[in-house]
């Protein structure tokens, strides 16, 4: 075994625990095996079966994120919490920055808006850094909106390109080939992954804020954008944050649309179609104003220890296990 890898991870987790407990956050442990999930069309799931030989069996799912349980705790008055949790995502390609089973740090700060959580995250990275951690993690964040980033790297102003046909024409002018009609967010993602994500500076962390509202998620919308940010370090997407949506009607609408998309994407290819927790939207009505950050700890460990491949920070990478 690579002893140094194990030591680095153990130290990082100890630093994380002391950082949050010093600030009054409660560490929680929630299930990784769940009877239902929040619908997320583009995140494929692992399904399994709970077997009771006398009372019947039922489908269960490995969580893609502990969000579903943590929000219930927040609604019940837990106050600010954090969790280091195993998460599972199916159908993603292996290697470099993906492993089907990975470790996520989630921290939810009650009363924080997205600006507060950016400041907290900057402080977090410095306070928990391992010895020898490079500047791509430790430097001051460069904070810019997605609109500013797209303007900087493509010259396009998203505010004037809100109709799918306009964005599509603009993408084609940039040289992208778009085979058929598609949604606004698919065209946006083409532009983003080809011209923005690859061009982001790699020597310091970059925090992109205010994602287009067309990319649907449980972050509050405001005008053409959503109160959501993502952190890139060394060119790798490291963390994602929402100012959490608390309107149960908006959430229920999102749920319905997202589940329809999920069914359309998975109906004929054998992919897992999870059960959906219908009571979840009511939980959101009781959610305090809070900002939730999800950070990939395997990626953070990679960056901090200067490894180029996630497999190098995993003691048993999926790609090297028997059968792969």
């Amino acid at each position: 075994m690579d002893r140094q890898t194990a030591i680095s991870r153990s130290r990082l987790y100890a630093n994380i625990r002391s950082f949050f407990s010093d600030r009054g956050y409660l560490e929680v442990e929630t299930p990784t095996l769940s009877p239902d999930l929040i619908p997320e069309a583009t995140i494929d799931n692992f399904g399994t079966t709970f077997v009771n030989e006398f009372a019947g069996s039922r489908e269960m799912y490995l969580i893609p994120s502990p969000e579903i349980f943590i929000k219930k705790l927040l609604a019940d008055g837990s106050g600010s919490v954090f969790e280091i949790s195993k998460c599972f995502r199916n159908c993603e390609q292996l290697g470099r920055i993906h492993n089907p089973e990975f470790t996520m740090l989630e921290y939810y700060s009650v009363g924080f808006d997205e600006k507060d959580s950016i400041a907290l995250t900057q402080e977090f990275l410095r306070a928990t850094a391992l010895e020898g951690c490079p500047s791509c993690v430790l430097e001051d964040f460069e904070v810019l909106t997605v609109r500013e980033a797209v303007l900087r790297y493509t010259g396009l102003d998203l505010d004037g390109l809100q109709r799918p046909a306009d964005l599509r024409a603009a993408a084609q002018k940039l040289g992208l080939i778009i085979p058929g009609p598609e949604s606004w967010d698919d065209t946006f993602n083409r532009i983003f992954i080809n011209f923005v994500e690859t061009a982001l500076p790699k020597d310091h962390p970059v925090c992109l804020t205010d994602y287009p509202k067309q990319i649907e998620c449980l972050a509050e919308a405001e005008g053409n954008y959503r109160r959501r940010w993502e952190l890139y370090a060394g060119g790798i997407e490291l963390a994602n944050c929402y100012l959490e949506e608390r309107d149960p009607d908006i959430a229920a609408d999102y749920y319905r649309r997202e589940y329809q998309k999920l069914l359309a994407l998975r109906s004929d290819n054998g992919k897992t179609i999870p059960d959906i927790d219908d009571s979840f939207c009511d939980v959101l009505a009781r959610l305090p104003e809070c900002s939730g950050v999800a950070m990939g700890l395997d990626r953070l460990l990679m960056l901090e220890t200067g490894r180029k491949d996630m497999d190098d920070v995993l003691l048993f990478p999926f790609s090297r296990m028997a059968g792969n």
Partner: protein
Amino acid sequence: MIKAGQIDKGTALLIKGQPFICVEREFVNPGKGSAFVRLKLKSPTTGQVLQETIKSQDSVEDINVETMDYQYMYNDGESFHMMNVDTYDQFEVPMSNFEGYELLMKDGETYRCTVYNDEILDIQIPSKVVYLVAEAEEAIKGDTVQGATKFVTTETGLRVRVPIFIKQGEKIRVNTETREYLERVNG
């Protein structure tokens, strides 16, 4: 038709009626959104390079290619002259489409090729190949700054960094992808 997610390095595709070979493939998963495959495609006939970003679920037209063995005869500085070992038909392949292959292919050697419509789309060079050391620098005694290595040139003209004990006339095994020395071959 195949799904874009099934495309791999070396997959041959038909784009607007033209054959292209995938030379680079990367999966890209935006945080929230469809999974994409970013491809770099090269036309073996014109050398044109295309960058395409396709949704993993989208279908693309692939090509039914044949694999045949061709003997590499020589190059004239512009084309590789190849001969089909079954039919003895001769083909010229523009060297610009296979950059650096002249340093890896050995005259008279047979290579497995991907063929479509009587055109060679791809020449497969084994990942490990034994070469003859045609020229070797004299090792400078006591110079261990470079980890005791020196350069040699193979019979194909490839310059390889090797340990100082390798002499002219000996054979070495080389990784053709990284072009790095692997080991000395006896006999």
